[in-house]
């Protein structure tokens, strides 16, 4: 019996290790490949990005997927930083779209969640349920209304067309309400008895309890929007203002070398947030686990 158990655990560990390699592989490959020189990348991957061949460089017949570059070089990063301002510009576009959305969504959602937590009623519960439904709607549904409003407001093809609807996205209201409903009512009631105003209760008692929740929601909202593709394609067709996510897919074959480095730069904010806030993130995901109350 005992032996059997040990064998099972060993097999599970091995399986987990295989899974782990598969899960890490794409990210690790992107990172290591970003340290290759232009000629090495062209030689290895020239075939994939068909018009990469300028007729002069050597392109291998086979595609060599390599882990370790022949010569570690930072030349791709230097090119991005100093010679090719496009990438940094697009990176900035991403920042200027996503950071306002995250901040605005947190502000709007924290007061809204307090409203939904502190007072319950049939109407408000119905409204909250509407948030849940809306939260689950895919872009194919929500982009058409977003487009119409942006058109009416005259903000189509500006950043506001993405930021404003993003600020009122229902996801964070939903998740934060679920967090807040765990705060003991007695805490709020005793503060009210001491004569605290409603705003005071919200700001000094409720919010401090939600710090970790706010952080995990910020991570989730950030990563969702950092990845955005659908909204800019439709609401912000102006190529100069599009975020790096869209731009990376239109990469010119001749620039395939710096594409890896750009991809790495693009994933850095997400990975840093992940390394710093994984525990909060896991908690946030676990809370999103059931749609109802």
């Amino acid at each position, binding site marked *: 019996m005992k032996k059997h158990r040990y064998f099972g655990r060993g097999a599970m560990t091995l399986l987990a290790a295989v899974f782990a390699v598969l899960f890490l592989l794409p990210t690790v490959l992107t990172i290591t490949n970003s340290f290759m020189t232009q000629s090495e990348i062209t030689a290895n991957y020239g075939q994939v990005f068909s018009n990469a061949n300028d007729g002069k460089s050597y392109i291998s017949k086979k595609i060599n997927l390599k882990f370790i570059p022949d010569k570690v070089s930072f030349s791709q990063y230097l090119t991005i930083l100093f010679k090719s301002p496009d990438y940094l510009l697009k990176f900035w576009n991403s920042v200027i779209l996503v950071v306002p959305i995250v901040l605005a969504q947190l502000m709007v959602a924290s007061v809204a969640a307090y*409203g939904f937590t502190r007072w319950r009623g049939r109407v408000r519960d119905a409204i909250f349920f509407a948030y849940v*439904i809306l939260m689950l709607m895919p872009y194919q549904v929500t982009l*058409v209304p977003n487009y119409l409003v942006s058109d009416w407001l005259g903000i189509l093809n500006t950043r506001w067309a993405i930021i404003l609807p993003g600020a009122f996205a229902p996801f964070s209201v939903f998740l934060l309400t679920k967090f807040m409903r765990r705060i003991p009512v007695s805490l709020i009631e005793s503060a009210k008895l001491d004569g605290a105003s409603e705003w005071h209760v919200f700001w000094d008692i409720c919010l401090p309890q939600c710090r970790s929740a706010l952080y995990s929601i910020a991570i989730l909202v950030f990563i969702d929007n950092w990845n955005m593709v659908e909204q800019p394609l439709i609401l912000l067709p102006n190529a100069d203002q599009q975020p790096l996510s869209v731009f990376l*897919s239109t990469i010119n074959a001749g620039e395939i070398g710096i594409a890896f480095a750009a991809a790495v730069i693009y*994933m850095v904010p997400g990975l840093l947030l992940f390394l710093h806030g994984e525990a909060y993130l896991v908690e946030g995901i676990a809370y999103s686990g059931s749609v109802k109350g």
Partner: protein
Amino acid sequence: MKKHWEKSNRRVGDFLQSMCFSGPSFLGMLLFYVIPFGVVVYYSLIAGTLDHSFVGLQNYKNVLENGAFKIAVHNTAVFSALSVPLAVILSMLMALMLECRIPAKSQFRTFFLSPMMVPIASIILVWQVLFHANGAVNEFLAVFGADKIDWLKSDYCMVVIVLLFLWKNLGYNMILFMAALNNIPKTLIEVAEVEGASAWYQFFHIKLRYLSPTVLFVTILSIINSFKVFREIYLLTGDYPYDGLYMLQHFMNNMFRNLDYQKLSAAAVMLALVIVALLAILFAVENWFGKDVEG
């Protein structure tokens, strides 16, 4: 009389106070989502933006008979049918795997969750290299004597996207399952062990019972996420992918480009109805199963 007044006053006052807090979000939601969606419904029922005459369900009929829409629905349905069961089952297995007291459990969790934080746009290069006709995957398969496959430009294209989808989403689902497994009362498992229940029995008769709400939730989440897979396809293959990868969002994008409000609206309304129907089923099933188990 006075008492009654006080009570209703408090009610109205409560409502106003709660709206002071929830109001901004509620108004924003009305302005950016609900009201325009009403207009979308209206647009789906009229002849055109200039001619506002009522045409009934004609627009819906036009969309349903549109060849591109049919392909898009078919492909999206195939993708969902392939990826959703895999996403649910694999993520549950991963959660159970981590339950088995294996060493370095939290490291494994980190590894499995990490793809979630990596933007798709960042790893499409590797994906293209892996699945090119002369790419690494084919070379690996050639060892077993398989023929070359041009993954993204053949009927195998769906496999590539399903793999990418699973890579990205399994971690999130796994966390949901791990949380649910944590909620199973320990005493129940202990009793089962003392009574000599096999691991299979424990899983199918105890754990799965407690996991069923999560299975349903992960299913609905995966269905919703599978509608979003356009993002991956667009980044990998651009505006005009291989036929087998033409998704609903491609169709919507084309309608946006032509500013065909009528078809756009009709398609959006139909999709919203499908989602609402799916949700209704989810809630019904959850009520059915969840009765004797505390969530």
